[in-house]
């Protein structure tokens, strides 16, 4: 149901208050509803973005190359799902080894997560198959109906007996002392409220979770006993187009069919892309983290004579090998995009800046950089893919110079996958929440969303955010 005012609410009325109505907040609320648990879901925005939203979402970026963070976040019901393309990917088991959360336990919520996201599968599960000695092929799944949580879940929340939604309600900070939060201090329009519950779930977004915890700590030093690394180990997925090339299309398709062992042509997603990632052996051998290669065959552009002749002038045998032996329209151009895993680094961090938002909470300073290890990973993977195409005589690629010089990396999209900052772990020195997503220093505050990610993986985070939220709601049910 919708709460238009927050007056005269009894202290024991809500069992859980959830701060933020993005995919993490809504999923947690829906699961708690199944257990008949009374929940208050507060959202700082309304059903649409306001013109002044940017004043709450902007920040000071200290980075060589990073997008404006105010356009990569949404202060409204449904949160960032309103900006989301619907890609769903699953973490590989080996990418989960540093997490304190058991992989199998988390993925026991797979069926529920698929239901929440409305995933329609061509296969029964996420598709991962060997592509070559060093690469595996996988496929994104698309949340057909739930690209936008607002459209899918607003009516259900509005009609729920147990979920109480309060829009235009901005969380300001936690109140309480000695590890126990007694209430949240918030503002609805021009009124201020202290709202109480047994448990609190901070689900305000990848960056916002760190900002609000840092500010709560600043406002109330008696509450936090430990010096937790809030805001640190921030990660993102830089996305860029560093290479292009061409393949003998029929030969390539035949190879993919052989490795896949299927009668379909070759496995591309709905955007005509082939998705590859380096396998564990290759990553260990080269000491690199993961990434996704998107081989984009969007337009199936033939590598025509003029294109091939450009290359032929530097490699004379080229024309003979490819152009004369093959039919012209069998040589297909493609480009390669990379979505790259970022290693968690303590210096990539969110801190409170000097500038304030309209309600007096400090905006953030975000310090971010791509390490040389990441740049080396891009180079090693691309060169390896180029070698593979030569070995199989299936095609050739060209790589932008900056991949070799490590200078002036040109990202196409950066800032969309905000992860880390309140990462999960066993040790208070390098983590903020425990395996149940409870803040180490606080008895009754949990964090939901990608800010608890320990590693970023090579895929889109939303599927894992939903899994974690389902697990969290299940845990709250057990302890309530």
């Amino acid at each position, binding site marked *: 149901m919708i709460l238009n005012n927050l007056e005269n609410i009894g202290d024991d009325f809500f069992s859980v208050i959830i701060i933020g109505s993005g995919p993490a907040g809504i999923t947690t609320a829906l699961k708690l509803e199944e257990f008949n648990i009374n929940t208050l879901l507060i959202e700082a925005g309304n059903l649409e973005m306001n013109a002044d939203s940017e004043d709450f979402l902007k920040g000071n970026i200290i980075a060589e190359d990073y997008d404006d963070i105010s356009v990569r976040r949404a202060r409204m019901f449904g949160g960032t799902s309103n900006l989301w393309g619907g890609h769903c990917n699953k973490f590989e088991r080996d990418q989960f080894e540093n997490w304190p959360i058991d992989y199998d336990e988390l993925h026991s919520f797979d069926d529920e997560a698929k239901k929440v996201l409305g995933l329609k599968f061509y296969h029964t599960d996420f598709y991962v198959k060997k592509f070559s000695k060093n690469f595996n092929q996988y496929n994104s799944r698309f949340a057909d109906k739930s690209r936008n949580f607002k459209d899918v879940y607003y009516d259900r929340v509005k009609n729920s007996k147990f979920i109480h939604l309060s829009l235009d309600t901005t969380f300001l900070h936690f109140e309480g002392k000695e590890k126990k939060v007694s209430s949240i201090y918030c503002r609805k329009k021009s009124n201020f409220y202290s709202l109480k519950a047994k448990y609190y779930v901070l689900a305000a977004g990848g960056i916002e979770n760190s900002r609000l915890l840092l500010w709560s700590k600043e406002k109330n030093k008696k509450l936090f006993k430990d010096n937790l690394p809030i805001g640190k180990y921030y990660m993102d997925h830089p996305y860029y187009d560093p290479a292009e090339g061409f393949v003998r299309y029929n030969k390539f398709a035949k190879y993919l069919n052989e490795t896949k062992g299927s009668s379909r042509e070759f496995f591309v997603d709905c955007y005509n892309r082939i998705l590859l990632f380096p396998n564990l052996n290759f990553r260990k051998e080269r000491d690199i983290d993961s990434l996704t290669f998107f081989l984009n065959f969007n337009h199936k552009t033939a590598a025509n004579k003029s294109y091939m002749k450009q*290359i032929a002038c530097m*490699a004379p*045998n080229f024309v003979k090998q490819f152009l004369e032996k093959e039919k012209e329209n069998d040589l297909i151009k493609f480009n390669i995009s990379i979505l790259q895993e970022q290693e968690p680094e303590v210096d990539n961090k969110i801190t409170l800046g000097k500038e304030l938002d309209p309600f007096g909470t400090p905006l953030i300073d975000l310090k971010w950089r791509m390490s040389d290890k990441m740049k080396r990973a891009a180079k090693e993977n691309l060169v390896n893919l*180029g070698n593979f195409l030569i070995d199989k005589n299936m095609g*050739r690629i*060209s*790589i932008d110079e900056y991949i070799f010089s490590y200078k002036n990396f040109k990202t196409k999209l950066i800032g969309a996958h905000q992860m880390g900052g309140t990462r999960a772990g066993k040790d208070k020195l390098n983590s903020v929440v425990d395996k149940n997503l409870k803040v180490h220093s606080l008895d009754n505050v949990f964090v939901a969303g990608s800010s608890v990610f320990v590693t970023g993986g090579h895929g889109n985070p939303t599927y894992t955010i939903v899994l974690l939220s389902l697990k969290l709601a299940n845990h709250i049910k057990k302890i309530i």
Partner: protein
Amino acid sequence: MSIKIKSKRNFFKLSFLLFFSLLTLDFNKKTLNNLKKKGIRFFKKNKKVWILSQNDFE
């Protein structure tokens, strides 16, 4: 006489060494050629680095 014998021995030794050196040299050349044939060449053009095979140039 003894000097002659020594010279002969030296001659055989030297011939032997020379013969094997040539063999090794030839072997090295062949190996290099093979590696070259299988080899990868990076070719820079218009701010792009092409990953090409040695065969593309011959």
